[in-house]
């Protein structure tokens, strides 16, 4: 078995009396696609936040390629290749969609003094445009991000996370707010990128169809604990998962049935 790319050991997080993470021990191998599910308030975002350096765990350690990254600031973690999208989209509202992506691409490709090179370089623009195509936001190329609808903003948010060429990608509810027609195409795109680049993807998801279809492995959270860590077929039939996350039996094909 290959060594884990990301290793989470004994992670705890308390907010006052609330325990948002309790004794989490998981590790991920390169190229894995992991779906994180759980009830609202179960601690999914907190888990993502700790890995990406936004929150400092109360206890425990996070190792990336055997190197401890616990407590590093987000930018260092991002530079290591751990990128993320957000539950509430974080985009540059007064820049156009193109400029949003250009910024993301440029930062990733210009370390140090490279930051002094012009932003609007043809090679960067080309890359940004490719990403826009892929994430179906090319139509909004010159629109300001503040003018985008919630869903389009979400797409942009994800595109920016991917733009940096990550090794590990964490997506917090990537498909929420995206209309059904767009959900699967979007995930297809993301997954395709993954397969090419040997990316590890962790994504928080409430839509079990998406989970079932795209992930290799499911982590289910409940009250800060991992209650299930198994392949999707198994996890979605787990009684605890059914009780606390799905709220009943899981029926393939979703609520339509």
């Amino acid at each position, binding site marked *: 078995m290959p060594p884990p790319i990301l290793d989470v050991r004994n992670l705890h997080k308390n907010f006052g009396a609330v325990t948002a993470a309790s004794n989490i021990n998981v590790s991920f191998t390169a190229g894995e696609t992991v779906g994180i599910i759980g009830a609202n308030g179960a601690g999914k*975002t907190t888990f993502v*936040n700790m890995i990406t350096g*936004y929150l400092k765990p109360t206890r425990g350690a996070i190792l990336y390629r055997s190197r401890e990254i616990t407590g590093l600031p987000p930018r260092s973690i991002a530079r290591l290749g751990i990128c993320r999208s*957000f*539950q*509430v989209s*974080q985009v540059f509202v007064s820049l156009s969609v193109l400029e949003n992506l250009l910024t993301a691409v440029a930062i990733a490709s210009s370390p140090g003094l490279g930051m002094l090179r012009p932003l609007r370089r043809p090679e960067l623009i080309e890359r940004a445009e490719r990403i826009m195509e892929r994430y179906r936001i090319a139509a909004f190329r010159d629109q300001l991000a503040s003018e985008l609808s919630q869903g389009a903003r979400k797409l942009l948010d994800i595109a920016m996370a991917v733009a940096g060429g990550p090794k590990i990608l964490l997506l917090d509810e990537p498909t929420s707010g995206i209309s059904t027609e767009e959900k699967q195409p979007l995930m297809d795109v993301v997954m395709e990128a993954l397969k090419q680049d040997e990316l590890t993807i962790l994504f928080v998801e409430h839509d079990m169809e998406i989970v079932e279809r795209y992930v290799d492995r499911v982590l289910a959270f409940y009250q800060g604990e991992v209650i299930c860590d198994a392949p999707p077929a198994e996890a979605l039939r787990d009684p605890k998962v059914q009780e606390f996350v799905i709220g009943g039996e899981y029926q393939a094909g979703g609520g339509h049935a």
Partner: protein
Amino acid sequence: METALTILLDGLVFSSYLFIVSLGLTIIFGVMKILNVTHGSFYAWGAYTAAFLIGLAANAGWPDWAGFAIIFFAAILVGLVLGLILERGILQFMYHRDEVLIVLATFGSFLVLEDTILLVFGVDPYFAFQPMQLLGSVELGGIARDTYGLTLIGLAAVLAVTSWLVLRRTHWGKLLSAVIFDRELAMAMGLNVSRVYIVTFVIGAMLGALGGAYIAPTVSVAPGFGVDVIVLSFAVVVIGGMGSVPGAMIGALAVGIVRALAVHKFPQFELFVIYAVMATVLVFRPEGLFAPVKARKI
């Protein structure tokens, strides 16, 4: 021991003064997110109006205590008139603009109002000493103190308690939080936001004017009266955490007492005290002592 008492009293008097002049500023900032430079004009106009009316009353043979009534009347009058003119005439068109532009708009209004004073009241100073004279002095800690100055402490306390009660103990305060956080949402929840803004701004203006009007009897009211108060009250408000009433109180106390200590013990450092306290607080607590809660972003 006596010196300690004197320092404490001096500190309290000066703190009260600071608190009274900063309260309106912090309330307006707290609710409307406007750093209101015209606060200095309200202050000056309050002082001028009070001094002018007290002078008139004295000439008309009114009793000296009428001065107290006039002070409050002047504050209400100035707050109402200037507050409405400014809010309706200028600020209401600016709420969607950048915070900093609003500051500058109030700065522009301040410059205009400052010269209007010159045109209306002339350059000669006004004196309205009657109320201070009436109250005389008392001996405390071995030295005479003017009673009027001590009433400042009372006024500050009353204002502090009242505003705290209104903001913390009534639903008003919580509704204000809603407006502060998000205008559109507050409106959707049924709140008449423009009325809230008008009322807040007028109350803030009245408090500013009251500061000036209440100080007027102790000073020579001359042009430029409102200029220094701006920086002073900004400093207090920043130390306390902008928009926080208890913050303004603690900020005023900190500055007032440290300053009294400096004046008595190391007068050569007096000038730095306010900014030193401000810089120190900000270095350790970037948003002031009582920072407002931020929304969770991620």
